[in-house]
């Protein structure tokens, strides 16, 4: 693994922090129309990822995840940004294609376990184009 943070898709984002407690397959697990988790086996079924800074350690499952993420980005239901522990090319592709054809960037960054754990403690957080994560203080 290269040095961290690794910028998979470059961009800025901010939003409420949402940590996934189990990996989620976007295909079959996320409804791109609503941005909500529909995998009935997922502990966070019913929660919505829209405009969050989503902390998702790894991806999982079907290779259709790219299409679902691209569609969610097109519809504006996707997370604002994605923080991961490993590069997931299938998820990256959804963001890369949306970036190419819609000019809408959903940044993805891979960080260390320590940085990931620190980020999940933040209420509302920002992600910069160089992969820095920090707290957005309310009132600023």
């Amino acid at each position, binding site marked *: 693994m290269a040095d961290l943070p690794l910028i*998979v898709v470059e961009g800025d984002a901010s939003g409420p922090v949402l940590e996934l407690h189990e990996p989620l397959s976007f295909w079959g697990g996320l409804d791109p129309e609503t941005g909500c988790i529909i995998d009935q086996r997922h502990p966070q079924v019913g929660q919505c990822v829209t405009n969050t800074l989503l902390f998702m350690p790894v991806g999982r*499952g079907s290779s*259709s995840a790219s299409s679902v993420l*691209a569609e969610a980005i*097109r519809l504006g239901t996707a997370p604002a940004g994605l923080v991961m522990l490993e590069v997931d090319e299938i998820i990256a592709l959804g963001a890369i294609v949306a970036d190419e054809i819609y000019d809408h960037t959903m940044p993805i960054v891979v960080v260390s376990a320590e940085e990931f754990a620190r980020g999940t403690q933040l209420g509302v957080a920002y992600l910069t184009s160089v992969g820095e994560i920090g707290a957005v203080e309310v009132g600023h």
Partner: protein
Amino acid sequence: MVVRLLRRRSKTKPSHWSVHRSAHLRSLAGVDLQLSADEQAMAAGEAGPGCQLAMRVLTRTAQAMGAAQLRPITGAHIDSCLYHGQAGIDFAARLVEGEASVVVPTTLNVSSLDLLHPELYRGDEETGRAARHLMELYEQLGCEPTWTCAPYQLEERPSFGEHVAWAESNAIVFANSVLGARTHRYGDFIDIAAAITGRVPDAGLHTDAGRIATIVIDVHQIAAELLAADVAYPVLGHVIGGLVGTDICVIDGLPEGTNEDRLKALGASMASSGTVALFHAVGSTPEAPTLEIALGGQPPERTLTISMADMRAARDALSTAELMSAHPTSSAPLRGISLGTPHYSVAEFGRVRDLLDGRRIAPGFDAFISTGRGVLTELELRGWAETLREAGVQIVTDTCTYITPIIEDRPGPIMTDSAKWAYYAPGNLGVDVIFGSVEDCVESAVAGTLVRETGRWDG
């Protein structure tokens, strides 16, 4: 030429390879991507704007994977042809408008429609039209209309050591593990980008080092009687996928020469509950003649032992309906079975035919089996298709019952022999599911009520 950073195309300037300097990404990624003269030409748009877009998607993904170069492929299997929304159409249309076409033999995965049995589709017309449009776009790009998630059941399939770009998680794991071909875990968009450019990132599972197992899965505690049954394999895959996540494992203790249909079920299941793109099985898969070879001569990072209790727990976890317990809480009776996820092989159809043994599916009971049109042709030639239809089996081609509205929306769970179907159907269709062996499924369908045999799970 060294590509340091691929930035989003400027709105005012056409995309080209004048590189936006950013020492930052280069140092973070740690690897520069080197393109050959041919690849530079494609990137510069000399093969047209469609190929240029494909090259951009490919190179950006290559950078995310840390690849230093691209490498040629001999074939591709495309998942992007399955409709998930307008984004897929927009991307494919950009490729078609940009006059792109595939440069290697390219097969197509399932779509949302059964073109041979269009009356089965119960979805709304608009979605059906969009799905059909997407399918046509991929045919226009030069792909073969195979419409199957099991391209390894086609006559032409990659041989050992061949590099390909396959998407569809069950196909990926089969190509790598069972055929010994080499594909990374490709998803939608890069599959067609690779087919158009004839290239993939030279990284991950394309490399020798990327294929070595680090985890040993010891299955010696699983009763031989259970491992002698088809039903063990999707369940075992469900257990393993949950344990290994994205890591490569070698399974020690499976019967030697475990057949392709069982390895197919094992892999499909591992790729649903986990993110498995390659597994080894000592004595059954080509890169694991011995445990030591599969591990690359290194000691494993972990050894995990699967118990009978693990197997029973996984079997139970695959059912959402509680009909399997002694005191069912769900009042709706079983109303159908769905087999063929991944697409059934000719041998698997033969098994159903033998189990039916001239008996018919109970009246009003649904019995679906999904397969590829290539397998259906073989069934027609053998006369099996007619036998099965007369028995009340509905053969579904080109698609699968868990990705599109085919099964009637009414109360009552569906039984399946597929861990993948069991995994995804509740979320996709909103149905309850009961997992069982193919024997259980056929006996239930004939009886018109739930039949389960649990003996071989004891011990």
